[in-house]
């Protein structure tokens, strides 16, 4: 009953909130006011239902937390399927082999004849998987908040486009060059801003990305301006020219290989000396510097390595699309990649892959609801954070916990 009353109140509040925007539409050209009262009814009903459900889930979550605290055995908490998968090495290896096999045959399963739409979609999604994994190094492992990651992606894409246009260099020559260019930009940008604290770093990277985009848009003579650069050749197979579908499949395998490489490198790095230094810096800067971690070098390497992957995959992006313009490198894309890392669980490779695929594929296949998809997308991002703030898979390293008297464990919250 109390729930009902509250839900009713909430629904009234939302009806008030949405009243002017959702009901009235002023048409200044035709000089008339359009009233759409039926929308208000929908909002009222929807808010009522959601509010009820919301209270129900919050209550359940609270009960769960209380129970967990009472048991005081964090290990015994029920984990999500993905979490258990990541924690169990045997199971995860089996699943990994299965997924890899599926990924290998994927283009042959979904494309028939000349229809290779799904392959193309998958290529775009996998490009973002590599981006997510690259940013995972900077943000997830080293804890450097980067809001302008897309700039390095742009650097890679334009490196290939320009080198090809002006000097006729091929895809395979440009692939490493794009990576190196991305890395160079990462170092050049990273060097002066290493002293900055987390949020300042974020805004500077954001500013850098904006500057990159504006320069690309306005310096027509070099970068082609807002129209971009067209006729970028797709990757060639030892000089062999491939047809439409084969090209898509071929690009698919290239990106897949890149994903594999990124996973391999990140995985090895995570447990290497430098990877541990990154995570130490992420957890506590002062303590790790006191323990002898070279802060400048460690941060710079995380920055440069993250940028390297973006540059590398930028080349693939340019080759895959045949055409690039500054519109592909907006802040929204940076935010999207960051969302992939955070939603997936910072530092967790599997989580980032799942989140990247989901974030990229869902809007693509939700085109049927074209009008609502970004609305739903934004709402899902908020809800996801509320109900799983640590991301899909929690990559926290084992840490010591005290059994405090009141059974509350210290989560590092302040």
């Amino acid at each position: 009953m109390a729930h009902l009353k509250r839900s009713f109140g909430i629904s009234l509040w939302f009806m008030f909130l949405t009243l002017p925007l959702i009901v009235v539409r002023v048409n200044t050209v035709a000089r008339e006011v359009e009233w759409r009262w039926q929308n208000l009814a929908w909002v009222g009903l929807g808010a009522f239902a959601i509010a009820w459900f919301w209270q129900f889930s919050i209550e359940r979550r609270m009960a769960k937390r209380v129970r967990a605290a009472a048991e005081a055995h964090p290990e015994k908490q029920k984990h999500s399927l993905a979490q258990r998968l990541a924690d169990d090495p045997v199971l995860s290896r089996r699943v990994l082999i299965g997924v890899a096999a599926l990924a290998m045959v994927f283009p042959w399963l979904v494309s028939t004849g000349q229809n290779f739409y799904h392959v193309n979609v998958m290529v775009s999604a996998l490009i973002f998987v590599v981006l997510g994994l690259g940013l995972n190094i900077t943000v997830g492992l080293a804890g450097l908040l980067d809001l302008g990651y897309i700039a390095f992606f742009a650097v890679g894409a334009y490196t290939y486009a320009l080198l090809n246009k002006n000097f006729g260099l091929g895809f395979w020559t440009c692939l490493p060059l794009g990576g190196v260019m991305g890395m160079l930009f990462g170092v050049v940008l990273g060097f002066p801003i290493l002293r900055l604290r987390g949020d300042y770093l974020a805004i500077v990277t954001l500013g850098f990305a904006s500057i990159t985009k504006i320069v690309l848009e306005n310096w027509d003579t070099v970068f082609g301006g807002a129209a971009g650069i067209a006729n970028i050749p797709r990757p060639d197979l030892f000089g062999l020219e491939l047809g439409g579908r084969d090209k898509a499949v071929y690009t698919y395998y290239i990106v897949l290989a890149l994903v594999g490489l990124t996973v391999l490198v990140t995985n090895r790095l995570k447990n290497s000396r430098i990877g541990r230094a990154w995570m130490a810096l992420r957890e506590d800067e002062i303590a790790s510097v006191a323990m002898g971690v070279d802060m400048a070098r460690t941060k710079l390497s995380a920055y440069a390595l993250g940028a390297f992957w973006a540059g590398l995959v930028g080349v693939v992006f340019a080759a895959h699309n045949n055409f690039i313009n500054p519109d592909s490198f907006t802040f929204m894309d940076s935010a999207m990649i960051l969302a992939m890392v955070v939603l997936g669980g910072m530092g967790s490779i599997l989580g980032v892959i799942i989140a990247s695929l989901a974030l990229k594929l869902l809007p693509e296949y939700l085109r049927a609801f074209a009008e609502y998809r970004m609305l739903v997308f934004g709402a899902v991002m908020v809800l996801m954070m509320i109900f799983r703030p640590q991301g899909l898979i929690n990559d926290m390293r084992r840490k010591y916990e005290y059994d405090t008297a009141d059974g509350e464990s210290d989560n590092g919250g302040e």
Partner: protein
Amino acid sequence: MDFEYLFELLCGGVVKGSIYALIALGYTMVYGIIQLINFAHGEIYMIGAFVALIITGMLTLSGYSGLSVLVLAAVIAMIYAAAYGYTLEKIAYRPLRNAPRLSPLISAIGASIFLTNYVQLVQTPDFLPFPELVPEFEFMESISRYMSSVDMVILAVTTLTMVALTVLIKYTRIGKAMRATQQDMVMARLVGINVDRVISATFIIGSVLAAIAGVLIASRTGQINSAIGFMAGLKAFTAAVLGGIGNIPGAVLGGLVLGVAETLGAGFISSAYEDVFAFGLLVLILILRPAGLLGKAVKQKV
């Protein structure tokens, strides 16, 4: 050197900068208290402008016009922006108070996407004309070369608002509570401050300021759409960081510096690179003064 031109640009820069400052205040106040970059703040500003547009549209079509219509619309816009800001905090940020640091940020980005698309969906993605309601003041004729009546109104309103904000923060109970919470949230709670209410109040005040900025800018540019919040938010955040985030006079100074630098750069070099000057300046200042113009360098104790 053409001093008239320079002066003209300076005036334009100050007007623009004062709008940035108004939005930046919301950012900086929220950041100061809960260390959250409230990415959806720009959307609150956009919603304020839209509510004002709807109210003015309805009234002008019924035959009313003049400054009083604008004032009424602004008041309603402020109420609605405050309601949106309050609800936003309650839904998207409050459950994440103790979550890992990046989670509220992602939640904010999600909220920003949601609000932009919500307005786009229920209104229109196109630019809508905002009625001109500020009359041409007679006493402005002599200086109309440098400053239009709208600009004058903008300057007057922002100055008044900032004075009011200063009074609010310095001399009222809630202002005192806000400062205490900013210094030390746990301690503030210990001395009996309802921190949740303080945070709500911060969001409400920030949103009201954003709505004022939204109404002002809409009357200046004469048109708005659902995407204006994003760039304005970005610029305002830049202004807040420029002045030292969490620092209220810093936000005002940062906004003014940013506005002037942008206008000067656009006027003397190239208007296409306007944003480059803004962000370039930011990078430069942060390299020289990592804590911002007025920010104090925090010594970390171990």
